[in-house]
């Protein structure tokens, strides 16, 4: 299944669910809900955090946090 970490710059995806239950609670509080569209914007070098656009704001996530988001 595709995760948010596999999006290419500029590519959009729709959140399907989460592969990590602890992380999902925090992600949901940040507005990452199933059905939500997110767009990958850019990443920090050396596999650093990634920046996603959703709900009109920019959210940065570590690689493992982005990997916990599965997409449709």
């Amino acid at each position: 299944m595709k995760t948010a970490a596999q999006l290419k710059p500029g590519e959009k995806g729709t959140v399907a669910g989460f592969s990590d239950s602890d992380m999902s609670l925090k992600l949901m509080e940040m507005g990452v809900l199933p059905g939500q569209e997110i767009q990958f914007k850019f990443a920090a070098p050396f596999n650093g955090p990634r920046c996603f656009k959703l709900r009109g704001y920019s959210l940065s996530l570590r690689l493992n946090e982005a990997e916990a988001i599965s997409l449709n």
Partner: protein
Amino acid sequence: MLKVALVGNPNSGKSSLFNQLTGLNQKVGNFPGVTVDMKSGIASIGNDTNIELLDLPGTYSIYPRSLDERVVINLLSNGEHAEYPDVVVVVVDASNLERNMLLFTEIKDLGIPTILALNMMDVAGKSGFEIDAKALSQSLDSSVVVINAREGSGLDDLKHAITEAPEKQGEFKSFYAAEELSQELVRAILEKYPHKNGYRAYQMAQQLNELNFLSPDEKEWVAGIKAQYDFQDKKLQEKETLDRFALIKKRLDEALVIKPVKAGRSLTDRLDKIFTHKIYGYAIFLSILFLIFQTIFAWAEPFMDLIDLGFSEMSGWVHKTLPEGILNDLIAEGIIPGLGGVVIFIPQIALLFAFIAILEESGYMARVVFLMDRIMIKFGLNGKSVVPLISGMACAIPAIMATRTIDSWKDRLITIFVTPFMSCSARLPVYAILIALVVPDKNFLGVFNLQGLTLMAMYLLGFVMAILSAYVMKKLLKTSERSYFMMELPIYRSPRWGNVGITVLEKSKTFVFEAGKIILAISIVLWVLASYGPGEEFDRAEAQVRTAQPNLDESAMDNAIAAYQLEQSYAGHLGKLIEPAIKPLGYDWKIGIALITSFAAREVFVGTIATIYSVGSDFEDEGTIKSRLRDEINHDTGGPMYTPALGFSLMVFYVFAMQCMSTVAVVYRETKGWKWPILQLIYMSAVAYLSAFIVYQWLS
């Protein structure tokens, strides 16, 4: 007085609003029982009525993920808390309404009169959101006020809403009845705690481990109830969050008009292309750091000279004015110079914090955290460690306090542990005098000044040791704790100078009071140690010197007597006592005294060696100390005492050694125990001793 708490997501403009309402009428205290800063202030709401305003830490929900955030649920769900508010104002970023509303609905359900303050409507308008505040108020069944925290508009409406809120709170209606997710458990809790509302009872079960107002017996009881009714906290929390967002969407639909806007690349997007670029991003960050330090040293110097002069004048005036005696000496030689030693760092600290506040206010600091996270993780740190480490170059005390935003305890502990390795401004006078003494003022490769390069090398050395120590600690400390990064990258905007000014004032005050207390106390102790001695030799100093060197003029005589007295004082005896231990580093008992006295604060080193080498009252004049030190003879070799080997050995010692009582005290406070400050003290002293030993043996 009405108590009002401000709550909101990070970057919602909550602090700007707090500053607008209270101005300079604010203070930083502690939440009872926990070491989390409590910012409170008094604001006038008209008709000679004042309110007490409390600025709570920014959070995305009442389920905390860091130490700071824990305060919110502990305050708002505990009616007996001394600071329990009568009204809560939830500040929301209107351009990001849905996500911001989550916190609002949670807090409303706790049953405190709650006002929604819609901030950043201008940004929302540009993104195509139009919000009908009146309709929103109806659909949420709450007061809604439109404000602009940056410009200070809408404050009268907000004040009006605050005054009305306690009476307006009619029968409590929850936004979302989370307690219905586990009715039997909530009923059982309410039977024991009848004054709580349903959501608070539910939160007792949800956040049992976070609530610090429950006694161990109560916790045990709640845990029992949770087991009895098979309370699935995570599952329920997930359902609660999803349901809340669904309900928020429904309620907002009634009040929100979304207009299509032309999707152009915003300024923030364009700036991010540069600031987070894999090469330019780091280059810009390094250039900014470089500029900041250049400016700090250049701009702070005249003020520091002025303060220095002021305090030595004051000391001299007291010495002449007060009747002679112990009190006179204590004030003129102990207390005033001790205070001066604290105050002199204010210009550098104020400037550094001004720069940090500007970087934070503008939104740039979040990008630094973003860029540095991956690199810092490799060394057991975290993107958020960058701010404390940079602040540590001014002063470790505010830097260590700034680690509270790091949510992982392990990352935070490591950051606290290694921050004192960053060369703070107190080390600068030590470096300055030693470099002037042992490094020639020549150019290297034509452009680089050798002395400047040495100074930079000292700063780098401290930084490298901080990183290496963090790496070792990462390997040693085992933890199963999860750390989250998840952070909003706010839009870039020009900083509000009022906010910057207030931050600077607040940080400088914290430094003066935290460090000041200890430095003052220690300087009195040191004064006693240096002014009294065992036996008669100390009292006979004057007679001794006058017979030995009868031909000295007045001031040289005073200096010689002072030096002789110091040698015979308790401090002098201590110096001789430790001489065997520091001999391998190249130090004699005189430097030993300076090591002991500067244990309280590094900068005391310069003053002490100045006194020892009997420069007397001119000791702030670097030229004079320099020539005295240069003339000092090493009695073992017959050559000069201050060789490059000794100079570098001392400098390296000061790069690594803890030598700061205030830091020990603040680490004790932040880690709630003696374990970490003591380990840190031992570790840093050991590193300092070994490195100084290696440097001295290698160079001599």
